[in-house]
C-alpha cells in the first residue's frame, strides 16, 4: 500500500514540476558571468504561523499552525492541526508538505499527513492540493487525501477577512470534510461528513499578535450524523471560542 502512495506522490510531483516549468522559468540560458550581483540574492526565509490557538467551550480546543521554510517558489511546510471537543480528540494531524508557487495567487501542495493515534490507530495519508486566494480575497485550501486500504478524503477550508477598522477584523471560516467511504470506527461517513463554521472577532495588538473571541459551530452530516446518533452523541454543537493568532 505504501508503495502505491509514494508512486502516486512521485507522479503528481513530476506533473506539477512540469506544469509550472513552462511559465515560471526564463526562456533563455542562464549566463555564467551573472554570478555577480551577490547583493541581489534572495535568501530562504523561515516563518512560524499560529493561525488558531484557542479554547472551545468547556472542554475543547484547537491548535492549527505551520512552519515554513524556503525561497520564492519552493517551500517546505510542516503543519499541525489538533482539535478537541467534548473531551475527545477529533484531529491530531502532523503534515509534511512541499509547496510550490504555481500562479500569482496559488500554491500547489504535495506531501503526507500523519494522524496520531485516535481511538483506533495511527494512520498515514498522501496529500495533494492547492492553497491560495481566490478573486475577492477568499483564502482557500483544498486538499485531497489518499490513505491506507484505498480510503480517500477531501478537505475544503475557506476563510475571509472583513476589516471592521484598521486593527479589528471579523474572520468567518468554514471547513468541510468529505470521505470516500464510511468509517464507523472514526465516525466519518461517505460524502460530506462534517461541516464547521466559525466567526472570530480579532483585535490586532500588533501585526503579529491578535487575540480573538468568537463562536464555532460544527455538525455531523449524512452517515456521520447517523453514526453519532447511534453512539448517542450530539450531531451538532455551538461553542464559544477564545484564542489568539500569531506569527513570527
Amino acid at each position: 500500500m505504501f508503495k502505491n502512495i509514494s508512486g502516486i506522490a512521485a507522479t503528481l510531483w513530476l506533473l506539477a514540476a512540469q506544469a509550472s516549468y513552462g511559465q515560471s522559468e526564463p526562456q533563455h540560458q542562464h549566463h555564467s558571468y551573472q554570478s555577480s550581483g551577490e547583493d541581489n540574492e534572495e535568501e530562504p526565509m523561515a516563518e512560524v504561523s499560529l493561525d488558531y490557538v484557542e479554547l472551545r467551550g468547556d472542554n475543547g480546543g484547537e491548535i492549527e499552525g505551520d512552519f515554513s521554510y524556503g525561497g520564492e517558489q519552493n517551500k517546505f511546510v510542516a503543519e499541525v492541526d489538533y482539535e478537541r471537543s467534548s473531551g475527545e480528540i477529533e484531529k491530531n494531524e502532523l503534515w509534511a508538505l512541499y509547496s510550490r508557487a504555481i500562479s500569482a495567487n496559488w500554491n500547489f501542495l504535495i506531501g503526507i499527513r500523519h494522524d496520531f493515534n485516535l481511538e483506533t490507530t495511527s494512520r498515514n495519508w498522501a496529500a495533494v492540493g492547492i492553497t491560495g486566494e481566490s478573486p475577492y480575497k477568499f483564502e482557500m485550501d483544498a486538499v485531497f487525501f489518499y490513505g491506507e486500504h484505498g480510503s480517500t478524503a477531501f478537505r475544503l477550508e475557506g476563510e475571509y477577512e472583513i476589516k471592521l477598522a484598521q486593527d479589528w477584523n471579523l474572520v468567518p471560516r468554514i471547513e468541510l470534510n468529505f470521505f470516500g467511504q464510511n468509517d464507523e470506527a472514526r465516525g466519518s461517513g461517505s460524502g460530506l461528513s462534517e461541516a464547521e463554521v466559525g466567526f472570530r472577532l480579532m483585535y490586532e495588538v500588533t501585526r503579529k499578535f491578535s487575540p480573538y473571541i468568537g463562536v464555532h459551530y460544527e455538525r455531523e452530516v449524512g452517515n456521520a450524523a447517523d453514526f453519532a446518533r447511534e453512539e448517542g452523541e450530539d450531531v451538532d454543537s455551538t461553542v464559544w471560542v477564545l484564542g489568539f493568532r500569531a506569527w513570527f
Partner: protein
Amino acid sequence: MKDSFRTDAVSRRTFVTGLGAGALLLGLPHSSHPNSPTASATTLRGNHFDLSIGYRQVNLTGRERQALTINGSLPGPILRWREGETVTLNVHNQLPDKSSLHWHGVRVPSDMDGEPGLSFSGIQPGQTFRYRFPLRQSGTYWYHSQSGFQQQLGLIGAIVIDPISPEPFSYERDYVVVLSDWSDESPQTIYTHLKKDPDYYNRQQRTATDLWREVRTKGVARTWRDRHQWNWKQLSDRNISQVTGETYTYLINGHTPDTNWTALFKPGERVRLRLINAASMTLFDLRIPGLKMKVVAADGQNVEPVSVDEIRIGSGETYDIIVEPESEQAYSIFAQSMDRSGYARGTLTGDIRLSAEIPAMDHRPVLTRQDLGLGRKTEETDTHFKTTQTAHTEKHSYLPDATEGGWFYGNLAAAGLGSNSPIIHQPSESGFRVDHRALTPANGISDPGVGLRNHKHRYNRRVLTYSDLRSNKPTQDQREPQRELQLHLTGNYERYLWSINGEKFRDASPLLFRHQERLRITLVNDTTLPQPMHLHGFWSELETGDGEYLPRKHTVIAQPGSSISYLVSADTYGRWALHSQMLYQRPGMYREVRIV
C-alpha cells in the same frame, strides 16, 4: 556677486554643522538638542577626499540605534566638486560587511560607478577603494551605498558640482535639503515583515466603514462596479506606500520634524534649495506654504524655470528650486510622504527665533482605474490629464515591428514624442511573479501622480509634472531612435516579489545596447505602485513632446499602470544597472545594461 555670497553661506554652514551633527551623534534627546539654525552635514571641498564608512550610535526617536555614517556624520558630508576637475575619493570601509558608494546621477566610467557585482566587487571590510573620475557635468546629485540595505541605515550624502560657466539663474543663498526615511527597525526586519505580510505597515486599508460610506453615497451597484476590478485582481486601491510612517521618521538633513532643520535668509534674497530625495522607500510631496517654488534644475540638469506650488520627488530624484521670501517671516519646508503617514519638516526663516506653522497633511490618496492600467480608454474623472499617447498612435497609422524580448524596430515615433509601440506583455510575465498587467496603460508624462491629480482643483496648487520640464539647452543628440526597448515593471505584491518582464535579476540576460546607438526605452509599469527607475551611466532624456529641448534625468518615476518613454545615447562602454530606487524592491526589479 552671487558667487561670493554663496561661498559665504557655505563656509558658515560648514562651521556650524559640525556642531549639529556632533550633538546628534552623541545621542542627546531632542529637547536638549541645540536648534542651530544652519545645522547640516559638513561640506567637503576640493578634488581629493578621504571618506570613511563606519557606524555610530544615534538617537533620533528617543531610542538608541546604530546608524551607518560617513566620516561620522548622518547623512554623510556634502561633497562639493567643480566641473572640469578630476576628483579622487579614497573610501575606507570600517564596517564588518562589504560596502560601496555609488555616485547617483554622476556620469563616470563604468568601473567607478560603485555598483557591486557589475562595476566592481564592492569594498571589503577594512579595505580602501580609490574612486577617480573626471567631472563632465554640474548640478545637484547624491551618493549612497549600493550594498545590501545600507542606504536605509544612513549611507547617503549630497553632491554639489559647481559649473564652469555661469548659471542661467542667480541666487544669494544655497542650501542642500536631503530628505530621507529613518526607522528604528533594522532594514532586514522591515524586509522580512514585507515578505511575510506586505500590508504590515499599511494602516490605511479599506474597512467596512468605508464600504458603508461609499454605498450610501454611490449606491450598491456603483460601489460594486468600482471595487470589482480591484477585488477581482486581489489588489487594493489603498495600497499607496509599502513602508510608511508606522515605522519611518522622515528627516531633512538628518533632522526629525522636532529638531527642525532651519535655514536663514534675509528678506529679498533669492534662496536656492537643492532638494534631494535620498529616502529608501518614500516619495515625498514637498511644498513651502506661502512661497512659489521656481524649479531651475531637475536631476542636476538645468531646465527652463517653471513656477509651481508643489513637487513630488521620487526616491533618487533631485530638484533645484529658487524661492524668494520677501519678509522676515518663517516658512515651513514641508515634505509629506505620498501616503500621508508622516512628513519631514524644516524651516526657512529670516529670524532664527521664528518657526512657521506646520500645515495639516493633505487628503490620503486612493488609487484609480488609471493606476490599474485602465487609463487610456475611459474618460478621466479624477484627472485633467491628457493621454498624449493616444494622439501619437492616431498620427502613425502603422506600428513598429516587434520582435522577441520587447525590442521594436522601424516606424518608431519621432524623437521626443514618446512611444507609439503596442503594449506587448512578454510570455515571462505570466508566472507566479506577476499578479497584474496593465492592459491599456496611459502615458505618464503629464501625470502628476497618485493623489496629486486634483490638487489644482482641491487646493489651488500647481503641481510639477514631467511635461513641465524643458531643458534650457537644445537636445545634444538629435538623432532619431534606431531601436526601442519596452520593459515592463512587474511584481507580485502579496508574495512581495519584484521583477522586470516577470523575470528577476538573477534569471535575466543583460540588456545589450550597441555603443553609440540612440535608443528609446519605454517603461510600462504593470504594478499599482509608482516606480522611480534609475539608469546608471547615461542620461534618460524624457520624451515630453518637445524633441528640441528634452530634459535629462537619471531617475524617472514610472506611474502605476502607465508607460513613459525616454531616449538614451549609449556612449559609455561598460556594465551598468537599471533598477527601481525602492530599496526593498531593488533585488528583483533590477537589470544589467551592457554596452557592447
